[in-house]
């Protein structure tokens, strides 16, 4: 069953992330794909994440298809103008890619080509509208196309954003612009997330909670201090500390598995999106401990 059909059937879905490497050596990535095959409903392929130059998302999505994984093409507006975005979307469509995640994209100042000219010709809300237009056989300028796309489009939201109100207003715009599903920025506080879900449930969209695996207490502190929109509660940091260096990663995997279990059992949201960040091969362990394999 396709990712779209599974999500719409009401089944609790699981996606994870593959970050394309910098360079042409894709051995590790292929290995990760083999490990993830058959265990996920879809796999996100990031688009030059953190504005660091890597293999393009489109090519890796095609590789994912070839490895039996259903890809979600992450598309940011940072590096391409409206012509390139639409052109890549058409290209993705003919290659058999059916899911697209529309994002604005981290600013180039976060990445490894800081002198680059950021594009942002359009942004996430408008990109969602563009995907709608392409699905209806028209390009963004209103021209008729020979053959339409049939994308299932998603967007992102940051439930821990502070202040939250403007973020929620943007969430509503994304729904209005045609987002079918949302994958959230990493969440660690399930009670806070429940509050967000009270709001999100008012809209006819599917919500997948974003989960980033903690590797150490230091990483948790780093996320709190430097990554916008992520808040790791003190009790989780304490739990990581108590585990000690040896058991830290194992504890991080347990925490993620525990959160998945709670989100699913209490029917808090429609699925989870696991961001293992370099530890894609550990995703099956998480799923096993969460009782999903």
């Amino acid at each position, binding site marked *: 069953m396709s990712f779209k059909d599974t999500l719409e059937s009401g089944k609790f879905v699981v996606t994870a992330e593959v970050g394309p490497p910098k360079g042409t050596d894709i051995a590790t990535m292929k290995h990760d794909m083999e490990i993830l095959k058959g265990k996920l409903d879809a796999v996100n392929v990031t688009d030059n994440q953190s504005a660091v130059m890597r293999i393009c998302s489109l090519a890796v999505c095609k590789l994912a298809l070839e490895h039996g994984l259903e890809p979600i093409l992450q598309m940011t507006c940072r590096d391409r103008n409206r012509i390139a975005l639409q052109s890549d979307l058409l290209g993705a469509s003919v290659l058999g890619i059916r899911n697209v995640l529309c994002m604005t994209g981290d*600013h180039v100042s976060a990445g490894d080509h800081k002198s680059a000219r*950021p594009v942002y010709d359009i942004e996430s809300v408008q990109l969602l509208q563009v995907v709608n237009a392409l699905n209806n056989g028209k390009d963004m300028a209103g021209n008729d196309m020979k053959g339409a796309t049939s994308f299932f489009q998603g967007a992102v939201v940051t439930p821990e*954003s502070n*202040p939250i109100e*403007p973020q929620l207003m943007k969430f509503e*715009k994304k729904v209005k612009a045609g987002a079918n599903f949302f994958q959230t920025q990493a969440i660690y506080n399930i009670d806070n997330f429940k509050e967000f879900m009270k709001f999100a449930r008012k809209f006819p969209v599917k919500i997948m909670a974003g989960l980033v695996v903690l590797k150490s207490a230091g990483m948790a502190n780093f996320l709190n201090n430097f990554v*916008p929109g992520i808040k790791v509660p003190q009790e989780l940091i304490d739990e990581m500390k108590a585990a000690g260096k040896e058991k830290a990663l194992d504890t991080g995997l347990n925490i993620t598995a525990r959160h998945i279990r709670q989100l699913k059992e209490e029917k808090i949201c429609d699925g989870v999106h696991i961001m293992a960040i370099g530890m894609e091969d550990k995703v099956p362990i998480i799923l096993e401990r969460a009782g999903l394999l």
Partner: protein
Amino acid sequence: MIISKKKDRGKLLQTLDRYDSFYLIGCSECASLCGTGNDEALKEMAEDLKAKGKTVTGMIVPKTGCQTLGTKVELKKDKDALDKTDAIVVMSCGAGTQSAVEIYPDKAVYPSNDTMFLGNMTRFQMFDERCTLCGECVLDMTGGICPVTNCPKGLLNGPCGGTKDGNCEVSAEIKCAWVRIYERQKRLGELDKMTEILPPKDWSAKQAPHKLYTRGDAAEGDRKDKK
């Protein structure tokens, strides 16, 4: 006003080294307020050139350097000094520099400044960029705060996920434009405007080089409107 800053003096003097004599042109408007093209700045430049063994044949701070015709009239008064010089150093913005190029097509003209942005002077010689001259103003929809300029991504429909405690992901010194817009529209009771999706910008409105004639006898409008 147009904000300019002085180029690295050492590198500039190196570039100018191929000439022996110079005439300096400042500007009494923006460049004077920036301290890059006022009397003081010109005198300092003259000293630096003299210290390198160069001759300064004259200098002037015209009223408005980018007003080509007016500047041409002012420069006429200094015709001898200008005739004698090898090169002209313009100490204003890029527009002022190109006024001089137009007035003296056969003389070498060099800029002493980098032209930065259209800015507001918030305190003496402290400048903030507020407008990017996008050609299609959205301030009516954004509580009078420009997201095209104040948001490094120029987002038109709300904050990105990078906003942290009301600050921007690019720098904690930048307040998130969309948090500011939200707060202001809330105060004004105009939050409904934040629910409206703003369409993609028509960047052709920013298509350089612009031309705009609005004078009665020569009114032609913007080049773009004529297509």
